[in-house]
């Protein structure tokens, strides 16, 4: 691609990203649901299941340290999924048809909302992380652990965004919104959400090791869980899981976009 082509492509991507962010500034409280829901889950789960950290062999003595990365990932997933719901609204309103009739490179129509998802997720993730830190767990993983938590959350928001975009392009209706968010919810909770793998029982003990989110959570938990110390062994499975999910849902979204375009 020529320099001019690259500049054009960058310009279109930037404009689509900026449009998504402007919308946040215009809709007051637009980030509230994606921040409040995980925060309530964090506090509620802490209140209900907080004594689980007393179990022999639990990898931390602070249950909130176990929950904070989960809530960060949940918030990132909800923020990512919301971009899919917004795309569905754009499709219903006819705005997306105008984009399709433009000469903009097709992958950019997906890249714009994905970039917006990354930006959007930073607010709830940071709010939840700070709230969690104030409630007790130290940053046992240091700067490396913190970096891994943010990398896990940002990457997961991309995955959720691609999932949301795929469903929005398929359904072309805002009614798909709950399905997008429920998908994120299911993916996050069918993992080591509440307890580590050795404590799981029944079908979840069988399913959780096959859920890539289990490894993304492990990667993020290097920040706060003392029993999951920062190491390459706790990092690469998460990176691999994220790369696999991004590739899978990215291809699905592109395929769906091609169908809509035809």
């Amino acid at each position, binding site marked *: 691609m020529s320099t001019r082509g690259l500049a054009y492509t960058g310009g279109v991507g930037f404009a689509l990203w900026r449009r998504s962010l402007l919308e946040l500034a215009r809709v007051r409280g637009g980030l509230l649901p994606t921040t409040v829901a995980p925060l309530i889950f964090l506090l509620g789960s802490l209140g209900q299941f*907080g004594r689980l950290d007393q179990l022999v062999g639990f990898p931390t003595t602070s249950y909130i340290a176990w929950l904070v990365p989960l809530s960060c990932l949940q918030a990132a997933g909800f923020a990512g999924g919301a971009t899919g719901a917004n795309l569905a609204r754009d499709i219903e309103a006819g705005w997306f048809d105008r984009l399709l009739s433009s000469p903009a490179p097709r992958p950019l129509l997906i890249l714009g909302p994905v970039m917006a998802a990354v930006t959007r997720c930073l607010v709830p993730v940071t709010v939840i992380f700070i709230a969690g830190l104030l409630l007790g767990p130290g940053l046992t993983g240091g700067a490396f652990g913190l970096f891994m938590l943010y990398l896990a959350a940002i990457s997961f928001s991309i995955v959720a965004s691609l999932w949301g975009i795929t469903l929005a392009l398929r359904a072309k209706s805002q009614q798909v919104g709950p399905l997008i968010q429920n998908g994120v919810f299911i993916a996050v909770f069918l993992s080591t959400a509440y307890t580590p793998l050795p404590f799981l029982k029944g*079908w*979840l003990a069988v399913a959780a090791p096959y859920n890539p989110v289990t490894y993304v959570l492990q990667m993020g938990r290097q920040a706060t869980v003392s029993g999951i110390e920062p190491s390459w062994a706790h990092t690469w499975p998460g990176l691999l899981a994220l790369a696999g999910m991004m590739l899978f849902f990215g291809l699905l979204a592109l395929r769906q976009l091609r169908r809509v375009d035809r």
Partner: protein
Amino acid sequence: MSALALERDPATQARVIVALAKRALRVQLRRAQFLLPSFLLPLLLLAVVASGTSAAQNLPGFPATGSYVGFVVSGTIMQGTLLAGLMAGIAIAGDIEGGFFDRLLSAPIHRASIVLGRVLGTALIGVVQAILFLAVALLMGADFQGGVVGVVLTVMLAALSASAAAGLGATIALRTGSLSLMQNLFPFVFVLLFTAPAFFPRALLNPVLEAISGVNPLSYVVEGMRAALFDSPALGSVWGGFTAGIASVALTCALAVWAMRSRVRS
């Protein structure tokens, strides 16, 4: 019969309540956007909590109920009924925005019948939910020592809980008339759920939450369900559950009727 006479005729109003309840039931059971949160989501959380936190049975002080899934299913029923109540509020807000509510107001129907119809429909959804969730818990290995009587009492408590939640949902919907606001209330359902001993015994909750749960009427309802299911007064009081449930229904329905009158006046 004049419109005023129709409004005051108990037989006519009973028919109106049943008709509106049937409509509420049809709408909630046919649309995926209503079914998904009130049936699928609680079942999912039951499966996750039952498998993911069952090690909690090894904690000192955890009541010996035989099956963990049997212990937590009361929380699932509570969650389902709360979400059904929210869905009722969303449906009312949808009726207000869509204009159906104005048509109801112009009909010779007592204002309270409109609220009671929705509440009755949601109570029936609560009954369906409770039966389904208990059946799933049995399939997952739950063992209810309370037998059929315990199950019937639990279903009745679920109906009360759903009615109270519907009354609350209706109050907010009638006060605000905003569909988008109602949809954004979804996370707040979990505040009510998590401030009750939904999945853990009260004594093992976080101390702050334990104190808050004392003033949440749902605590007594969920403990009443457990006491009925396991035929164990140590887990709660069945009659305490009924008292809290009936009081909550009376309060929230009165609030909803008041909200309805305010809406009509304005």
